[in-house]
């Protein structure tokens, strides 16, 4: 369904659509739509031609989109804030350290341009609560990231906004944009990038307080390999962030990332965890547990299996395997060794 009104704003460089990560919110269920493995691209009402052109190139479920960034200044196209919304409007915005804008519950501005009425900076609230709504429910800050991108395949001076509320995405995008800017001597505008969904393992808390690693499809911005080779040469291109040397592949590249709790990821019971279901096939997947092959658990397990001292087991492991691996894979290797 198209987005109403988006192109009626009177903008010279109009926003013609939005690129989202999740399924549409179910109005009957008070929770965000399920995380998808591909991008959900919604075009504005009246942009049917652009939507058709996009679908012709990328299909309905793209997990990689060619984009260019319109400016060299990151802050002009990438907004990453903690924002709080109630009664249909933003009531507070913060960078996580200080509040830049805040309304009280009567709609009066209490912080503007980083300063309160007394001219002081207001630190970000420790409890993450921006205020209280009409029903006296706390209104919390949430991470919000918006990236303006131009899709060159549309041949238009118009942009789409990539939306995310994931802490991991916001960190990734900020780091990647910063790195590319540094590598390319301050220039970002016009570089052909590939916006991709990449599977990564993310650590999340379970309701019982323990943590589990789950697969999340995060946003990754990668420089177009062909452009990188031409610009930096084959060897240097391989050193670029997240460059994998392939063009528009499936994006299935599981990496183990150490991350903190993503406050936007809802804590759901294990049975409900969307990551346990492959969203393409609909089949249940077992969660992946990553272990250090020289960690206590692995060494003790190997010592038990080989009937040796843990120190000897550690030496034997070090000769065979390195780093981290899936626990099940480790057990299989152990039993076949």
């Amino acid at each position, binding site marked *: 369904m198209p987005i109403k*009104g*988006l192109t009626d*704003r009177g903008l010279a460089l109009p926003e013609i659509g939005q690129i989202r990560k999740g399924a549409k919110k179910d109005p009957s269920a008070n929770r965000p739509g399920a995380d998808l493995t591909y991008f959900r691209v919604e075009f504005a009402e009246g942009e049917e031609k652009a939507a058709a052109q996009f679908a012709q190139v990328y299909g309905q479920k793209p997990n990689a989109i060619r984009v260019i960034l319109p400016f060299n200044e990151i802050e002009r196209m990438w907004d990453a804030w903690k924002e709080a*919304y109630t009664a249909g*409007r933003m009531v507070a915005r913060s960078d996580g350290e200080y509040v830049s804008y805040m309304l009280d519950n009567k*709609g009066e501005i209490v912080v503007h341009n980083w300063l309160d009425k007394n001219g002081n900076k207001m630190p970000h609230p420790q409890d993450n609560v921006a205020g209280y709504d009409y029903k006296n429910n706390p209104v919390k800050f949430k991470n919000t990231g918006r990236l303006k991108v131009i899709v*060159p395949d549309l*041949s238009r*001076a118009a942009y789409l906004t990539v939306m995310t509320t994931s802490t991991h995405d916001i960190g990734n995008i900020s780091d990647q944009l910063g790195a590319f800017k540094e590598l390319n001597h301050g220039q970002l505008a016009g570089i052909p990038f590939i916006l991709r969904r990449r599977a990564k393992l993310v650590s999340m808390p379970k309701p019982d307080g323990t943590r589990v690693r789950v697969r999340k499809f995060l946003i990754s911005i990668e420089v177009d390999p062909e452009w990188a080779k031409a610009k930096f040469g084959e060897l240097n291109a391989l050193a670029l962030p997240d460059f994998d040397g392939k063009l528009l592949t499936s994006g299935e590249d599981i990496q183990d990332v150490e991350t903190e709790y993503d406050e936007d990821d809802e804590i759901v019971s294990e049975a409900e965890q969307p990551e346990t279901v492959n969203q393409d096939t609909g089949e249940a997947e077992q969660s992946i547990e990553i272990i250090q092959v020289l960690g206590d658990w692995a060494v003790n397990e190997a010592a038990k299996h080989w009937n040796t001292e843990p120190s000897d087991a550690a030496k034997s492991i070090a000769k065979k395997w390195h780093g981290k691996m899936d626990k099940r894979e480790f057990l299989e290797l152990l039993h076949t060794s």
Partner: protein
Amino acid sequence: MESFDLVYASETVNKYVCSACWGDLETVRDPRDVTKYFVLCRKCKDETRGYVTKFYANRRRGESESEKLEAVKLLQSIGVLEKPAPKSIEQLKNELGF
């Protein structure tokens, strides 16, 4: 969509515009509670999703002019948009009113 008391609803109409189309807002009485009012976009009506300040909308409109100039120049330089054919001296003179 939430309904507000008259003061809050009027303040919203005065200071905000529709978050989707940035069009003007209006108050509509809440049929369930005569003391409350919905604040709806004149264009989007029942599909109003939220509000942004008039200040923000005006600032973005201003910024957008220079953004377009930059974006068009960029897209022309990398071949996404065609460069306009150079104008003849006669055309330039005409445009300048000579």
